[in-house]
């Protein structure tokens, strides 16, 4: 995932390697479910890939298996929520948000039940398994559906906070993350609030507005650019909806250029959400969306795909440098 130079920058920042957000999710959910028997996990033959096998062993009555049937998974998750259960439907993001999109739209969002949907192995986490297993559309489609909070945590801290929030939420929530181990980006005392960006690093030359597993690469790029005397802001945009327009507009006002970064199609995701906010406010700064372009996605592991599309310390610092040159 990281070049030797990027690893050196990791060392410079003193970032510690945590576990996969998937593992953090599973541990947090099990902890919450032990204390609250009303919490129910629903899986579509996905307890293994969702790291919920221990949950199933410890709390067998709180795990419902529906088999390989994502539409049924979402409908059942909604029905449980409608009858007072705090239900978490857990399934690979690619299947959950494409095959069962109509159930998400109608049974969860439109019916307004407090169900939680967990999209595991999101983005290109499944890497070389190919396009069938990638979810590069989920943020776009769910942004267009009314009444759902969308959270894309960047590290273990944000993942835990997202699950704590979701467990208490009275409205639909979607959380998506990957399965690679993540560096810890935030100090434990960091304040997490749904809908509010975390400023991971401040600066005013370039603002990197990133989400999920791309945030660390933006942070490393900011470190690299600092060596050239550039000060870069790094925003972890963990909540895609509701969107922290204030932080975007502030970055638009205060920074010379903006680079958005996401593990998602460049269509309809974080980048276009930022562009929309800025343009409608009349803020026009050099602006670049980095994500997966509208083409047949290059094959390879998640790290290969990231590197190929410039989601790396080197790629992002180059994008930022070129953007500043356009000024």
């Amino acid at each position, binding site marked *: 995932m990281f070049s030797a130079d990027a690893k050196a920058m990791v060392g410079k920042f003193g970032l510690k390697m945590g576990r996969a957000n998937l593992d953090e999710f599973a541990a947090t959910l099990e902890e919450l479910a032990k204390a609250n028997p009303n919490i*129910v996990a629903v899986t579509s033959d996905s307890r293994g890939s969702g790291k919920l096998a221990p949950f199933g062993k410890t709390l067998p*009555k709180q795990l*419902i298996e*529906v*088999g390989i*049937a994502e*539409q*049924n998974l*979402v*409908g*059942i*998750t*909604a*029905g*449980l*929520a*409608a*009858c*007072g*259960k705090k*239900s978490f439907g857990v399934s690979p993001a690619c299947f959950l948000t494409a095959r069962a999109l*109509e*159930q998400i739209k*109608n*049974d969860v969002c*439109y*019916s*307004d*039940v407090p169900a939680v949907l967990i999209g595991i192995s999101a983005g290109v986490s499944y890497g070389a398994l190919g396009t069938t297993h990638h979810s590069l559309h989920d943020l776009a489609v769910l942004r267009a559906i009314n009444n759902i909070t969308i959270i894309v945590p960047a590290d273990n801290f944000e993942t835990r906070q997202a699950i704590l929030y979701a467990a208490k939420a009275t409205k639909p929530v979607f959380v998506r993350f990957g399965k690679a181990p993540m560096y810890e980006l935030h100090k434990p005392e960091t304040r997490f609030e749904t809908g509010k960006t975390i400023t991971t690093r401040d600066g005013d030359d370039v603002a990197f507005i990133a989400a999920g597993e791309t945030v660390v690469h933006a942070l490393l790029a900011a470190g690299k650019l600092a060596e050239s005397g550039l000060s870069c802001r790094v925003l972890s945009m963990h909540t895609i909806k509701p969107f922290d327009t204030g932080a975007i507009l502030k970055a638009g006002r205060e920074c010379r250029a903006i680079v958005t970064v996401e593990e998602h199609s460049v269509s309809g995701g974080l980048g276009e959400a930022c562009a929309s906010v800025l343009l409608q406010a009349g803020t026009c700064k050099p602006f670049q969306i980095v994500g997966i372009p509208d083409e047949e996605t290059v094959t390879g592991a998640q790290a290969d795909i990231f590197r190929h599309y410039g989601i790396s310390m080197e790629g992002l610092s180059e994008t930022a440098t070129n953007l500043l040159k356009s000024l």
Partner: protein
Amino acid sequence: MDEATMTDRELQLKAVRLRKKTLEAIFEAGAGHTGGGLSCLDILNVLYNRVLNVSPQTFISPMRDRYVQSKGHSVEVLYAVLADRGFFPEAELKTICHYKSHFVGHPTRHIPGIEMNTGALGHGLPICIGMALAGKMDNAPYRVFTLLGDGELAEGSNWEAALAAAHYKLDNLTAIIDHNTLQITGHTREVMSNEPLDEKWRAFGWAVKTVDGHDYPQLTDALSKPAEQGKPTCVIANTIKGRGVSFMENVAKWHHGVPSEAELKQALAELDAAVAKLTGASK
């Protein structure tokens, strides 16, 4: 009138009145699903007046029975039945499909008495499995019912759910199939054949009962209790699309046909004649 003690004839009289209300509401709205509404009206009449442990007063109780109308398009009859049961004033039926009215063309939870927002087909059964599972987890006494159209059974999600309901032995769940054999394009057997329905549901592990969907004793018997311990119940209700109005019966175009003023007048006259026949027979 105390619903618990209503006779079959009293319920049949109520059904005629509800058919009239439904047709008037569809005429007023200028839109609606007439044929499938009239086919399932007797089922709803029995459910809400004899079977479901739910009323405007108990609708907030976690122990209430749940009814989710998977064939959401037949919403006008549901509105008419709920109004009759006192969930909201009957005058509100006049706002169906009006600007800013919550009485849209498919059920929504904005309307008192409605559990879930439906309308896209193949959604009700999975939702009801979640509800029935929640009931089992809580050892709650409530039962869960859904109404499916027979054309709706072409949606694959129903069969995902059919597997799960039997797998989890959800004997607190009843799926009713409004088996009117017609859908928007024509005969279900020609659009996408799904017979034999009873054998299919049995093969999926359900207890199956086939009834005349306009026969009050048969409906009451099939719906009043689960058919078999440890199995979900499927009630195949053989119905007539457009039931009660001669020129609408078994005619596919009345799936969402809206009567003209003359057609409404004729339909209401036929229904009034049905009342006379019922009351005459009671003398």
